[in-house]
């Protein structure tokens, strides 16, 4: 029998330390919607999403009420549109984005991911069409998220795709200049993108997946932080052990919610994503964990080590708590969505380069970072290439979600609203990499990709 103390611990985690299930994301395959006619394709896509995910929001809310655990987001990811729509005879894919947006609105979700292409080695004509459609699609829709996979450990880096991605970021920033270039908050550039990621904006439903699946992202940086408060000053063994135990408990809740959602929706359970994802609220911050570990500010010497052990301990605790772990499973360090990261940038403690170093050992990359609106496109290519190189060489997923905020200078705040938060505009290195990135072509796969 459960004791009153165990019950109280769980309730405290939820009510005081912001424990929640961050997202239940339903992956839906659009491969069976293929059609030469774009109108017929869009109709099939809309029908399939609305049919499969009709009850997603209600089931998420029911589970939340019955178990007393907030389920913050309910979302949908679909097959990369460049693949699903490849048979359509049309000039661009903006209408498909509008269809996804309409379907998302009908079922009551805030984001739908998968306006994506996998171009790590080369581009099909359809991939090119999708890439050209991204800026207008992000400007004209509210809920659609887009991503490109431009590099992988197996294939190397497609520099031509990197350069086009940088151009897409600039064009999207310009088209949404009246809203602090917020279109860029819905666009991610990946190395080693994963097929079952439940988190936006980078979620898509991979082609190796089944017809539909339920993937769940758990969270709880506040719970980890409050657990660490009880071991202040203790050695690293104690620190790691405390994070592991906490991660285990958090993940068990995610596993329960995922299985229950899968059962009620009659859709197979996919994976649990073990990521510590912050929100702009106080007490829901990865930066606060780093401070609790003993750093004055994120960015101080020791930050890379701190985030490395945090991430590793979360995984060690989480893996045992779930039957299937996948997705990104790394601590997220988005600047605009974490009040502690914002303060660290404003205090001059945290630079773009330190964030890059942190992404080598833990996280998914440079996330939700605003840079000056007049940053040259080649500099954005260079930033993306650095992050892709980290992912390629280290066999891990890395990503760039960066916002050249129109009209903003270093130190200004760029507001994106709601979940996306606000980011201080950070300095991007002023020295040019134009002659480097304009070489174009492909960077060959690294030697350690040849494992056969």
């Amino acid at each position, binding site marked *: *029998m*459960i*004791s*009153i103390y*165990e*019950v*109280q*611990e*769980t*309730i405290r985690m939820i009510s005081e330390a912001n424990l929640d299930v961050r997202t239940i994301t339903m992956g839906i395959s659009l491969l069976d919607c293929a059609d030469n006619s774009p109108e017929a394709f869009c109709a099939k896509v809309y029908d399939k999403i609305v049919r499969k995910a009709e009850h997603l929001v209600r089931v998420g809310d*029911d589970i939340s*009420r*019955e*178990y*007393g*655990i907030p389920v913050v987001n309910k979302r949908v990811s679909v097959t990369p549109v460049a693949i699903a729509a490849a048979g359509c005879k049309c000039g661009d894919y903006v209408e498909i984005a509008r269809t996804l947006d309409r379907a998302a609105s009908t079922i009551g979700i805030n984001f739908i991911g998968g306006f994506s292409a996998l171009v790590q080695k080369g581009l099909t004509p359809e991939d090119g069409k999708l890439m050209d459609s991204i800026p207008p699609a992000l400007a004209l829709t509210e809920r659609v998220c887009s991503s490109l996979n431009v590099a992988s450990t197996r294939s190397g880096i497609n520099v031509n795709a990197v350069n086009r991605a940088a151009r897409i970021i600039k064009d999207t920033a310009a088209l949404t200049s009246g809203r602090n270039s917020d279109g860029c908050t819905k666009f991610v550039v990946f190395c080693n993108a994963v097929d079952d990621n439940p988190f936006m904006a980078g979620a898509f439903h991979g082609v190796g997946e089944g017809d539909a699946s339920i993937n769940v992202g758990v969270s709880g940086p506040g719970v980890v932080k409050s657990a660490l408060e009880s071991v202040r000053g203790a050695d690293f063994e104690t620190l790691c052990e405390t994070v592991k135990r906490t991660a285990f*408990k958090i993940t*068990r*809740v995610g*596993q*329960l919610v995922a299985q229950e959602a899968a059962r009620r929706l009659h859709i197979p359970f996919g994976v649990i994503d073990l990521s510590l994802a912050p929100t702009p609220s106080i007490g829901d911050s990865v930066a606060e964990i780093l401070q609790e570990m003993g750093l004055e500010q994120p960015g101080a010497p020791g930050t890379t080590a701190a985030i490395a052990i945090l991430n590793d301990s979360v995984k060690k605790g989480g893996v045992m708590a779930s039957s299937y772990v996948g997705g990104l499973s790394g601590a997220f360090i988005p600047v605009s969505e974490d009040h502690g990261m914002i303060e660290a940038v404003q205090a001059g403690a945290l630079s773009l380069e330190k964030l890059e170093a942190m992404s080598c050992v833990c996280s998914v990359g440079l996330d939700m970072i605003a840079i000056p609106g007049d940053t040259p496109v080649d500099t954005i290519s260079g930033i993306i290439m650095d992050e892709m190189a980290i992912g390629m060489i280290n066999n891990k997923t890395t990503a760039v979600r960066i916002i050249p905020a129109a009209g903003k200078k270093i130190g200004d705040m760029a507001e994106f609203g709601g979940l996306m938060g606000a980011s201080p505009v950070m300095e991007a290195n002023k020295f040019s990499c134009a002659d480097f990135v304009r070489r174009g072509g492909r960077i060959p796969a690294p030697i350690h990709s040849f494992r056969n």
Partner: protein
Amino acid sequence: MRGIVTVLGKDSVGIIAKICTYMSERGVNVLDIAQTIVAGYFNMMMVVDLSGSSEPLASMVVGLETLGRDIGVVVRLQHEDIFNAMHRI
């Protein structure tokens, strides 16, 4: 299916009585009660059997929240499995 009711708030006359009345009116059997009172603060946990309940769990969650507000305490009803998942392997 079992649920866990927790009550937290300032102690007053009749808290348990009101909650038990609410339960019995809906065919819910109380299996076990544990409580502590520290410095005038009432802390109670009740294990209840929901299998014979006449009302869905989700609507009882809301009903108990409202009842709690009326008597000045925080009342939660949660499916037992969230605690089992977290604290039992």
